[in-house]
């Protein structure tokens, strides 16, 4: 688990954040992530993120549900235990539409939500770091990753020039880790940083 360095800047308005994101990218810095208190439409495009395929996954889960319901009911009613209900045909598709529909929705919704949690690595008891606690309140926090090539001081000055407040250098472990929230929040690598 490598420890990486980040330059972290906070913005208090998305109207300032947007041009900043573009300029930071144009200047060749690598944006690690932008944390926002609410979804900002177009920010993913501005950051150059790919579209998510979650909707395709939802469709696949959905047709799995359709196939499951139709296959299961027709197997039961035509081969496993064909019930004679008033001499009506065993394969009575119209009567199965409600259950088929419900299972389509159920599979799709449950599958998508689980996939969402998996992709975002979210579950109860998972703890992650997002640099600034106010990023779930009113700040838009941009973290730029620092490599050997980046000049730290320059990056800080650049972010400040773009309107970021409270710009600082932070060190983080890059992997997600498990932890508990009731423990005092300590930033990983604190000792090391103090030594520096």
């Amino acid at each position, binding site marked *: 688990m490598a420890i990486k360095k980040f330059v972290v800047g906070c913005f208090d308005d998305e109207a300032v954040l947007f041009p900043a994101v573009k300029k930071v990218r144009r200047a060749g810095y690598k944006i690690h992530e932008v944390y926002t208190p609410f979804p900002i439409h177009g920010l993913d495009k501005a950051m150059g993120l790919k579209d998510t395929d979650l909707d395709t996954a939802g469709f696949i889960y959905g047709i799995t549900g359709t196939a499951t319901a139709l296959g299961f009911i027709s197997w039961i009613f035509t081969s496993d235990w064909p019930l004679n209900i008033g001499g009506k045909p065993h394969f009575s598709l119209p009567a199965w539409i409600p259950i088929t529909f419900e299972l389509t*929705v159920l599979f799709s919704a449950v599958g998508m939500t689980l996939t969402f949690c998996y992709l975002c690595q979210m579950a*109860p008891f998972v703890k992650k770091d997002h640099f600034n606690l106010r990023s779930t309140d009113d700040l838009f926090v941009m973290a730029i990753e620092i490599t050997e090539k980046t000049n730290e001081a320059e990056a800080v000055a650049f972010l400040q020039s773009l309107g970021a407040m409270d710009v600082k250098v932070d060190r983080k472990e890059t992997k997600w880790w498990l932890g508990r929230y009731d423990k005092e929040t300590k930033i990983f690598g604190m000792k090391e940083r103090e030594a520096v």
Partner: protein
Amino acid sequence: MRLIARRLKLENMALLRYESQVRAPLIEDNKDYHQVTVDICRPVEARPTRLWWIGFSISVLLLCFGIVSVTMEVIYGVGQWNLNKTVGWGWDITNFVWWIGIGHAGTLISAILLLFRQGWRTGVNRAAEAMTIFAVICAGQFPIWHMGRVWLAFFVLPYPNTRGVLWPNFNSALLWDVFAISTYFTVSLLFWYSGLLPDLATLRDRARLKWRKFFYGVAAFGWTGSTKTWQRFETLALVLAGLSTPLVLSVHTIVSFDFATSVVPGWHTTIFPPYFVAGAIFSGFAMVQTLLVVTRKVLGLEQYITIEHVDVMNKVIVLTGSIVGIAYLTELFVSWYSANPYESFAFAQNRVNLSSPYGWSYYIMMGCNVLSPQIFWIRKMRRNLLVTFFMSILVNIGMWFERFVIIVTSVYRDYLPSAWSTYYRPSIWEVGFYMGTFGLFFTCYFLFAKFFPVIAVAEIKHILKRSGENYKAKMDVVEHESIEQFTEKHAHDHGA
């Protein structure tokens, strides 16, 4: 127009979120992002008030009454209820359909209005979705306990069992119900909880106390609010909304199939699915009004759940109430026009005839559901909180009687006139069970209002710059600029 739009876009980011002044602001007063967080989190972070304790205690008491009633039913069987030969489900199924109907407004507000891009949904969707989930839980109690031997409830599930190769009947409307309601509950829960995640993270990051950090930390699933997460989150919300929209319509359709697929006069009508769905939305919105008119006052959220919200929901009530009214009249007309003696007996004799044993219930239904909501054609009445609260209660009473009328008046006089003298009157345990579900519902709601933000914080922030009063005021200047002035000003900037 497109040119202007492009210019506006380039002019200022804030203009992107521009919304016409014709629409009243949805967030009143001078708010910024932090103030929104503080306002909505305040009731969650403060100690419970005396009013909360009183309400919560009453709910728990009612719940206890319900538990006693159900226990009596489990010990002595369904015979504890005053059901008789022809009225095989009295209050029980009435309450079931009533609660399920109430449970439709939440998903309607959160899903259908999301697809329609209605900004006002953000103020009320969280509470309405919570209400949906609790109402569905309450509804589910009725068929389960009505089974009598409730420990065998799992027989309804299709699984390879030891009773011979015996499967449930997939052609039965009652089994469709099992699938519809369990799916509806699951999907509503996923929708609600995934929407809660960002707000739980906000509470987690604001928490000072140890148990709060732990509780909200666990509950927030490690939410960070990164752009990638939001991107996936929005896709998830949109697709779940797309799925929930036909789902919410299907659930009450299937509930109406419980009746419509039978051959009982008064039930055997093709109008039932749309009529039930409209009724469900109608009663659901009434319940949302009942809860929110009180919640906004008690939690001091008047600036987020504004009179504008109340007004809009009252419009939905008058619309759906009128749809329900047309459905009632259509039913009456068809019963006469069909020239079917059984059908016209069910309507003309058992319902419309005031001197028949249950005639009174038909007029309560008509009065509460069709006539009384018409008051909401008047704007002043729509925006009056007292009238709204009173009307919401009236509508809920009316909608309860609608189900009662459909169920009891259709079956209490069957094809055997010698059985007609039996007048169905609920026993104390039937009433107690119903009261108990109120206890369950309000206990859940009070806990929800105490531990979770009743308004979606992130969503309010999302519309703040578009619909906030202070932001709209800034836009006022732009709106009153004539097109000539505007183009004059921006003619030579080339979008720079």
